């Protein structure tokens, strides 16, 4: 059994929180530059230019890309031959606290959804844990903003709805979201599993780098088709009209019950924040 020090986890999570908030992924910068060439609307071009300039300032000055520094969503892959001295969930939360405090990141978490006050340190994190073979710990921090999260939805469809039903639901969701999730967006889609698991799939889909297709050619084609259809909606940057509404669409699937056909759409803004470390 490999022993990992509590503070190693704390410091790694703190660093990932800051890096995810300061540094827009190279994949997003690249696709924004391509979008700028493709965009026909003058307003749209102006907005895409602002997003690129913003990313440059955030990176150089080490300040957050967006004032909404997100809910700290953490994907933890825990090697079964590893042990963290103390409790790893506590260590992750201490890391979030440290990262958000020392990194001048906005604290956006309310302690109780109805009666609560701001917790003041952006904890607790949402931690999704998977036990994997080996003695390594893989931690991904994916801060998630509220504006785009609010434009997400789970729908319990009928198996008869099939892939066409999925496509219609995704397009309808993006249409109704309109300007609210700060387009250009990244769209995560989950298909299958159960009510709660399909939402997890849609969230997990958002961890992919822009351009990374589903390994199954069938779903890869659906991703391409959905992206084209979304960009034909005309919503455009910030919803003010244009050619570029989404930067990519990612689908994740899972076996389902014979009676169920759950589908989830998790919307992300252009700040598709996620940083990973392996300990």
């Amino acid at each position, binding site marked *: 059994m490999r022993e990992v020090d509590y503070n190693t986890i704390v410091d790694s999570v703190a660093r990932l929180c800051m890096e995810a908030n300061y540094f827009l992924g190279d994949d997003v910068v690249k696709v924004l530059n391509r979008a700028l060439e493709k965009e026909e609307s003058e307003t749209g071009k102006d907005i895409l230019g602002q997003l690129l300039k913003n990313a440059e300032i955030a990176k150089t000055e080490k300040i957050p890309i967006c004032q909404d520094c997100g809910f700290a969503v953490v994907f933890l892959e825990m090697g079964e031959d590893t042990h963290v001295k103390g409790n790893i969930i506590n260590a992750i939360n201490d890391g979030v606290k440290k990262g958000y405090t020392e990194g001048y990141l906005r*604290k956006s978490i309310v302690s109780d959804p109805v009666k609560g006050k701001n917790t003041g340190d952006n904890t607790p994190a949402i931690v999704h844990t998977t036990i994997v073979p080996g003695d390594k710990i893989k931690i991904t921090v994916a801060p998630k903003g509220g504006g785009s999260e609010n434009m997400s939805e789970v729908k319990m469809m009928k198996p008869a709805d099939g892939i066409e039903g999925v496509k219609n639901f995704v397009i309808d969701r993006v249409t109704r979201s309109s300007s609210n999730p700060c387009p250009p967006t990244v769209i995560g889609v989950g298909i299958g599993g159960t009510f709660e698991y399909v939402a997890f799939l849609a969230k997990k889909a958002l961890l992919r780098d822009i351009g990374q297709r589903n390994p199954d050619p069938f779903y890869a084609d659906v991703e391409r088709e959905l992206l084209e259809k979304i960009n034909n909606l005309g919503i455009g940057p910030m919803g003010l009209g244009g050619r570029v509404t989404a930067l990519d669409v990612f689908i994740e699937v899972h076996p389902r019950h014979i009676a169920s056909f759950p589908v989830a759409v998790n919307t992300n803004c252009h700040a598709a924040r996620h940083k990973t470390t392996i300990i």
Partner: protein
Amino acid sequence: MPEFIKIKTPLSDEDVQSLKIGDSVLITGKIYTARDAAHKRLIDLIEKGESLPLDLKGQIIYYVGPAPTKPGYVIGPAGPTTSGRCDPYTPVLLSLGLKGMIGKGVRSKEVREAMKKHKAVYFAATGGAAALISKNIKAVKIIAYEDLGPEAIRELEVENFPVIVANDAHGDDLYEEGAKKYRK
């Protein structure tokens, strides 16, 4: 680069009526921050007949909750938040003389009608361009509800703050018109 129209706060009815959807505007002067939590408190005061911590006449409210200020900076990154959360409170503020709002995302029918009635304009700022936008903010002062943290009401001194007219006082809506123009 678009051609910018420069305006100064407070806004007059003439300023507001000259603006049309799609105009790129640079705002200079004092503007006030408030998100839905601060709006709720303002409305509570109005309902109780008490005076407000700011005079709304001719002013612009910016829907924003900035990130913390790093040492040596005026303010942390400060991009717009979703305006729709303030929609239930906005018509009352417009009836008290509020002339402009800055945020992101579509407004409700009620807000659009109240904007037409009371002559007001809604500007879209670029969501997610928070670091860039903060460079146009030259001074900050908390004027109410400090306990709300990032949601407190702040007076911002802005210079050439870049926005786009999304809804004008004539009832036009760029969200609708823009999407119509580029839909395939």
